[in-house]
């Protein structure tokens, strides 16, 4: 076996983290993006700026604040503690929360753009054809924004795959539960195990590349099909 059992577990944790985070992001991001694309609220740009923060913030800064707030004395950690839950720092759930913040702009922005591109007209047409607001959202807005959903899912997934700083700060690098592939690679390099680092890095590289091929291929098909 070229990849050690610990490396395989790290890969598995990485994929699980990316999948769960993407799912959570789609559930939270869809209504948020919809609201951002429709709202006339004059302070909307403040929300947009907050969502875009992870794009420029060093992941360690984000991770640091998350660690503080997830800890037993932090607002989120304190709330969980009060409700009788286990502490979130250094757990997989904590990692998911961190990833959701970290990858938020990569999901919300493509969705917001896609919803904006749908425009008001198709929804007005649907309203004149007796469709209720919820009906309009699911039968018109979502299908018409499909390329945006594909881009958002893949970008959110891929960006979580490459996460390093945030995970290091709040995950604690516990093998089998919070150690992800990117940190395992770092550990191998630290220990001068270049062979193992190569295999793990290569796996991530290949996987990420294939993922992006799918995104661009799919979006190309859309533009070709609708001249």
């Amino acid at each position, binding site marked *: 076996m070229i990849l050690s059992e610990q490396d395989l577990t790290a890969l598995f944790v990485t994929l699980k983290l990316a999948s769960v985070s993407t799912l959570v992001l789609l559930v939270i991001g869809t209504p948020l993006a919809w609201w951002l694309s429709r709202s006339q609220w004059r302070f909307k740009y403040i929300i947009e700026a907050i969502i875009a923060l992870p794009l420029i913030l060093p992941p360690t800064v984000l991770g640091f604040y998350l660690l503080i707030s997830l800890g037993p004395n932090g607002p989120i950690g304190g709330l969980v503690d009060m409700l009788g839950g286990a502490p979130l720092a250094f757990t997989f759930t904590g990692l998911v929360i961190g990833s959701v913040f970290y990858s938020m702009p990569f999901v919300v922005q493509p969705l917001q753009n896609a919803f904006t591109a749908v425009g008001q*007209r*198709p929804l*007005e*047409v*649907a*309203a*004149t*054809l*007796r*469709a*209720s*607001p919820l*009906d*309009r959202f699911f*039968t*018109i807005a979502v*299908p*018409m924004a*499909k390329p945006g959903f594909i881009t958002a899912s893949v970008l959110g997934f891929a960006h979580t795959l490459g996460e390093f700083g945030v995970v290091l700060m709040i995950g604690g690098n516990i093998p089998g539960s919070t150690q992800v592939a990117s940190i395992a690679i770092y550990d191998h390099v630290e220990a001068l195990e270049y062979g193992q680092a190569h295999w793990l890095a290569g796996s991530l590289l290949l996987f990420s590349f294939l993922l992006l091929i799918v995104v661009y291929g799919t979006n190309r098909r859309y533009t070709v099909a*609708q*001249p």
Partner: protein
Amino acid sequence: MTITVRFNIQRGEFALNIDTVIPENGVTAIFGPSGSGKTTLLRAIAGLEHADNGYLKVGDALWQGNGIFLPTHQRKIGYVFQEPSLFSHLTVQSNINYGLERAKDGSSAAVLQQAIDLLGIEHLLQRMPWQLSGGEQQRVAIARALAANPSMLLLDEPLAALGDDQKADILPYLESVYQQLDIPVLYVSHSRNEVARLADHMLLLDNGGIKAAGKMSEIFTAMDLPMAHQSRAESIIEASVSHYDEEFGLASLTFLGGQFSVAAEPLVVGSEVRLQVLARDVSITLEQQKNTSILNIIPVTIDQIVRESKSQMTVRLIADETALLSRITCKSAYNLNLKEGDKVYAQVKTAALLT
């Protein structure tokens, strides 16, 4: 049953103030220059534009007023937008089914088939919207609106985005829609020709207010309204075919006030037609001319004379119940000594069949 409309909408500099009653049968054209508020009025009737303190009653149903605002999807309307606006992710068939599936009452396979037949789109059903021409897309959009079995049809300049050929292509479909369906149609337009051809009633809008409301043919010839004074002033006359002369290809058309002979393709005796007579094609004589090439000479009474410019005047003539406009030179009027109330003869050089 009628449609009572009262709206006061303020949008920045623009204000729409409408208080009128729209007849519930036939086609009512909402006519006026760009920016007069035609589209805003139509959107407010559809509930797409929220007019505070508005009032809208369709037959017995209150759609807006007394604290009620029925959202668009609960109004039994069909709406056709200026651009076809088909759902790009659905086939033509699914586009048409969209409204049909959501109309809870009265819509059925029969209504759907009637809409498909009226618009002649059977052969397009399996295609995607982007595979259709602009005219075809608009026909599908009209069929889609009809398939939901609306009790009122609202059209916002459905031909404006189309080329002349496509307009000519789609007009006959619209005519058959209006003739076949027994629902009120509100038709926004800024084209005189479309209004002359399609409308029964008219709302004349100007700068957000109603300038006139009534029968289309009366508004076209009313001397206190602008249309009779424009250079292309015309009279629109409803007539029925009383005889068709195969030898000379002439149709005899009877109207309230006389008879017209018009060159036409064979017409069925008894069918209703609409005639367009341009004011500049109508001349006036004091005595009935004999030995003239002009076929249509109608005894009339001078109702009103208005001078348009130094050289031109418009004369409104009455033949029994029908008004006829004539554009003549002031010199001729002076030579003939025309006065209001005089009995004279109108000579009509050409009359065009509109339907």
